[in-house]
């Protein structure tokens, strides 16, 4: 009788529409994030993450409206990430009905923003997203660095030190994306996931690289992740959430079934 490990489907949302269409055969509008979220909720997803990839600032109101609709219809935790740069952005999303916001690049350029956000709204709703990439050469001890701009720009910041700093500043949770693995479907980077999870008291969500159900199991068992985030393996119907949960439970992981 303990805490279940979480499965979190992540939707990329551009101007109020899901990008990379979700392939549920019996869904009315697979481009509508709320419709997709509702479906994932019915399947037993433990949380939902919306990643707002809307480029233009004007279109961000569309995201607010999407979050409002989601909060009126789907009653599991919702995290909104992408474009969270100011206290006002957080307030807007929380008022719209998001439960947590995920801060990424803004934390790198202004770490005190994390502290300000946690002081203002409480650590429970502040997720810090970390994009890490392995920079050590073979033969060297493992070392991961923080990257921005979709993994293109190195920052010189050590990923584990950075995660510790984010925890100290008040992050309630870390969303750790391995940039080497993202989209490659070879599994999560277990080394960095494990290192950060062991170094912190707060929960760590593993992200980037899940291509099959064994990857989800590894993320939890070897990577010590508290939650696993995945996109394509669910969106394209390769696996359903109940299948994933049953598989993980069979491997001895406590799940909410």
């Amino acid at each position: 009788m303990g805490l279940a490990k979480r499965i979190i489907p992540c939707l990329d949302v551009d101007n109020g529409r899901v990008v990379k269409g979700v392939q549920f055969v019996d869904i009315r509008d697979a481009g509508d994030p709320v419709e997709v979220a509702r479906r994932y909720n019915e399947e037993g997803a433990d949380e939902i993450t919306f990643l707002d990839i809307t480029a233009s600032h004007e279109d961000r109101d569309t995201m607010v409206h999407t979050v409002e609709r989601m909060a009126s219809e789907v009653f599991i935790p919702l995290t909104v990430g992408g474009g969270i740069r100011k206290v006002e952005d957080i307030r807007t999303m929380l008022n719209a009905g998001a439960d947590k916001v995920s801060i990424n690049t803004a934390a790198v350029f202004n770490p005190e923003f994390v502290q300000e956000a946690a002081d203002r709204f409480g650590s429970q709703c502040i997720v810090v997203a970390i994009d890490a990439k392995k920079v050590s050469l073979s033969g060297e001890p493992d070392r991961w660095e923080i990257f921005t701009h979709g993994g293109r720009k190195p920052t010189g910041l050590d990923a584990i030190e950075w995660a510790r700093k984010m925890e100290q500043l008040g992050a309630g949770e870390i969303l750790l994306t391995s940039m080497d693995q993202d989209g490659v479907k070879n599994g999560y980077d277990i080394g960095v996931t494990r290192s950060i999870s062991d170094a912190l008291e707060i929960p760590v969500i593993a992200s980037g690289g899940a291509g099959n159900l064994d990857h989800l199991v590894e993320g939890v068992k070897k990577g010590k992740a508290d939650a696993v985030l995945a996109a394509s393996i669910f969106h394209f119907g390769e696996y359903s959430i109940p299948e994933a949960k049953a598989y993980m439970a069979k491997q001895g992981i406590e799940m909410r079934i």
Partner: protein
Amino acid sequence: MKTVAVIDYGMGNLHSASKALEHVASKDTRVIVTSDPKVIRQADHVVLPGVGAIRDCMAEIRAKGVDDVVHEVVESQRPLLGICVGMQVMLNHSEENGGVDCLGLMPGRVKFFGKGLVDETGEKLKVPHMGWSQVQQHRDHPLWKGIDDNSRFYFVHSYHAHANDDAMAVGRCHYSVDFDVALARDTIFAVQFHPEKSAESGLKLLENFLNWNP
């Protein structure tokens, strides 16, 4: 027309709670998010939410006179539901923020989980306790109606509650230690978890609350 007042004292996100209540409320029920004591006094059911640091919550509760109104609601025997920090503030005292005196509606204390927690097998346990944990229905209560024992609810908290009187503990949970996650006394029901974020089980509990006329 029945009314449900969700008390807004400036701490956090009331959208989720009010939307979930609207979702399960009957057509003749109005859900009002308010800080107006007059509206709260007239409501049939009252919800006291709360997130963030308990010191800030108690400060706002006192500054806005919510403490007096909540005591009135209890005295007039109207159903009152506390959620998360809204539950913790109903006890006597919390050790968060160096120690904060609370409303004392139910005798009990709020304690820190601590650091370096491990489970029975030596696995590290993270703080905050975040996610879906099973709730053991320690005692029968009308608000458990239609909800299976040991159903999972969504939690986010670093401090846990202990009622002095076991008779008030209606729901319990285990995360390194045993603690109370649902407390009841007369017309008060209070939960540590977030029913508004706990999918079907949570919605059922909110529906039961709206149908509860003790």
